[in-house]
């Protein structure tokens, strides 16, 4: 009998110890979708956070496949209470998530606890995480597309300006002339474009639409009024470049980056998240002189499409978040926002104002060069149909690929897109 007693006591004691350890250190499960050069930076940030909060909070991070796989998993896991404590989320996907009820609101008290608030963000960024006046995520960054260029090749073709930027950035004619000069100088692809991936080209096409003040959705109607014509104009420019052999055809995402970094493509329109790829290659002595600038003005005025990475809290069905856990998660979001200067080395433009206003940020290159575009950013239309891997992406993508590779006329594509969007 005494043995039994001892044993029970020992078990109870061990159990008690374990709970007290768990209380001391709160583990926060975390999902993100950063797989590229920015993934390395995010892992570093997570490690730094864990180091700074040793014994108090520990982030247990998992990186999942970007896009459709990530969002499919989030939707279903939240429904059965298996979602993480915190996850990264695209602002463009928030309308759908809120409709599905899979996100928790970030309340006014939460913002206060985090020491963050509306005044810390650009109005468009704040608006992108708000639905009916309530916030559902904490913005981390905005990530637009930019024009990367190979200074060596541009100089050889005589199209590198004295300011170190490409010539002809102010109009369609001049930019096409720059591309032609590169072609004449023997460059295989003056412009590397992700022409095999309509999902990606959405960013470029939508930017060009924005340069004409075109709208994808006006009061719930797709491509209303002359917006359809503006979409056609945008597609026409890109398909013209293809027809004249100025742009790489049927090129998927990794191939585009490879064409640029190997010097076969002199310029490339791609996301700022490729900045670390270039920086790292350059540091290893494997890259030419390069730069990145805001997209050329092909139509009326500068405009660039961007999305925003945010932090969101899944509404785990049937599982209430404990106050301790919530405090830990808020600390994670607050810390990440305030330390997002390092995130800028991943190319992204931090959303937290005090960081982008700092002298350190202003000294960063090429970030500072392209940061002018923040004034001209357009986001996705706010509808559950929009966003990364959303249905609008699919419909448009389907007709972008044939159009951008010269198989289909832009007018026909717009007609098909309108019909496709009407069927959603």
């Amino acid at each position, binding site marked *: 009998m005494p043995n039994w007693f001892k044993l029970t006591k020992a078990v109870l004691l061990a159990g008690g110890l374990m709970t007290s350890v768990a209380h001391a250190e709160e583990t926060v499960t975390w999902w993100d979708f950063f797989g590229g050069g920015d993934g390395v930076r995010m892992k570093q940030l997570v490690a730094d956070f864990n180091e700074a909060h040793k014994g108090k909070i520990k982030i247990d991070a998992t990186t999942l496949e970007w896009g*459709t796989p990530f*969002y*499919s998993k989030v*939707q*279903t896991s*939240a*429904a059965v209470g298996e979602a993480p404590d915190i996850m990264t989320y695209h602002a463009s996907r928030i309308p*759908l998530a809120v*409709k*599905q*009820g*899979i996100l928790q609101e970030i309340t006014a008290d939460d913002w206060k606890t985090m020491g963050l608030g509306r005044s810390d963000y650009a109005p468009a960024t704040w608006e992108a995480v708000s639905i009916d006046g309530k916030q559902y995520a904490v913005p981390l960054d905005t990530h637009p597309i930019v024009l990367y260029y190979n200074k060596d090749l541009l100089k050889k073709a005589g199209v590198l300006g004295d300011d170190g930027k490409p010539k002809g950035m102010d109009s369609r004619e001049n930019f096409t002339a720059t591309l032609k000069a590169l072609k004449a100088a023997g460059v295989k692809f003056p412009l590397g474009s992700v022409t*095999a*991936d*309509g*999902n*990606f080209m959405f960013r470029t096409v939508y930017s060009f639409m924005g340069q004409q003040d075109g709208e994808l959705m006006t009061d719930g109607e797709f491509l209303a009024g002359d917006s359809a014509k503006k979409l056609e104009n945008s597609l026409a420019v890109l398909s013209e470049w293809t027809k004249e052999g100025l742009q*790489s*055809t*049927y*090129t*998927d*995402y990794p*191939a585009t980056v*490879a*064409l640029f970094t190997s010097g076969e493509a002199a310029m490339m329109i791609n996301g700022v998240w490729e900045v670390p790829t270039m920086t790292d290659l350059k540091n290893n002595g494997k890259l030419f002189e390069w730069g990145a600038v805001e997209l050329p003005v092909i139509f009326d005025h500068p405009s660039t499409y961007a999305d925003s990475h945010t932090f969101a809290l899944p509404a785990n069905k049937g599982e209430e978040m404990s106050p301790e856990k919530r405090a830990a998660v808020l600390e994670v979001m607050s810390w990440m926002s305030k330390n997002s200067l390092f995130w800028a080395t991943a190319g992204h433009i931090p959303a937290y104002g005090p960081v982008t206003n700092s002298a350190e940020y202003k000294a960063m290159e090429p970030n500072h060069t392209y940061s002018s575009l923040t004034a001209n950013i357009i986001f996705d239309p706010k509808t*559950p*149909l929009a966003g990364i*891997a*959303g*249905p609008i992406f*699919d*419909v448009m*993508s*389907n007709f972008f*690929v*044939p159009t951008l*590779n010269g*198989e289909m006329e832009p007018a026909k594509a717009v007609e098909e897109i309108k*019909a*496709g969007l009407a*069927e*959603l």
Partner: protein
Amino acid sequence: MLRNRRNEGLFGLALVAPFVAIYGLVFVYPTIKLFMTSFTDAPLIGDGNFVGFDNYARLPSDRRFGTAVWNTAYFVLITVVPGTLLAFAIALGVNRLAGRLQAAVLALFFLPYILPVSVVYLLWDWTLNFQFGIAMYLFDMLGIARIPVFKSTAWFMPAVGMITIWWTAGFSILLFLAGLRTIPTEIYEAAALDNAGRWSTFRRITWPLMWPITALVLTIQLISQLKIFDQVYLFSVGGRPNDNMVLVYYVFQRAFQSDQGGRAAAVAVVLFVIVIVVSVLNFQLTRLSGGRDR
């Protein structure tokens, strides 16, 4: 020995109970739920309102559904019969080999079958990628224009069909080989004594005796190809998904991307019915036509 019927029945019931329970939980119950969901406007998560046959009524005029039906049928057409015949031919060849060599060759043919679909996708993307695929350099050397295999609608299905046959033939070959080994050698000896040629031996002996296996392989192939999804999804992601649409992909798109569980369920029900009808029909037809020779 005397047996207690009642006890035995109970014992049998107890033995199958675990299976019946799991089968009911993961198949029967979800299937019933699927039918019920297909009559509602439910989103992906949660319940919806009853809408009667609305989800079905809109299918005939739904262009993407039309594309999906057509592509699925096309895919079945180019993979099921050619894939089965090819596997049969390879099995006949492998059967002529003996000993270690046979095992080695069989292993070579079977190897692709054990690869996960993602690996199959990567292998073939490296081969056929428009900018960097190995095959494209071959095309350049031969002076043929490069073909964007997975980005053009004309090439997509044939290419994915070919890859699927390459990937899955190993299993069919194994079935055929097992079948070939059950044919007694005496029959072939007797035929040889009767001076039967190679062709008539095949036509009069091998083919009819192998018919049950062929019918089985055809049915397995038919069902699995009707449910094609993985390859089509992987090869068309980002590209032209709506032109390469197949039925399971459409179910996925409606449910997970458009958040329309009810409409997705309706498409799934249609596919369910098609699979049942076609496979029963196929099995009956192959059985009947096989019986004719006997």
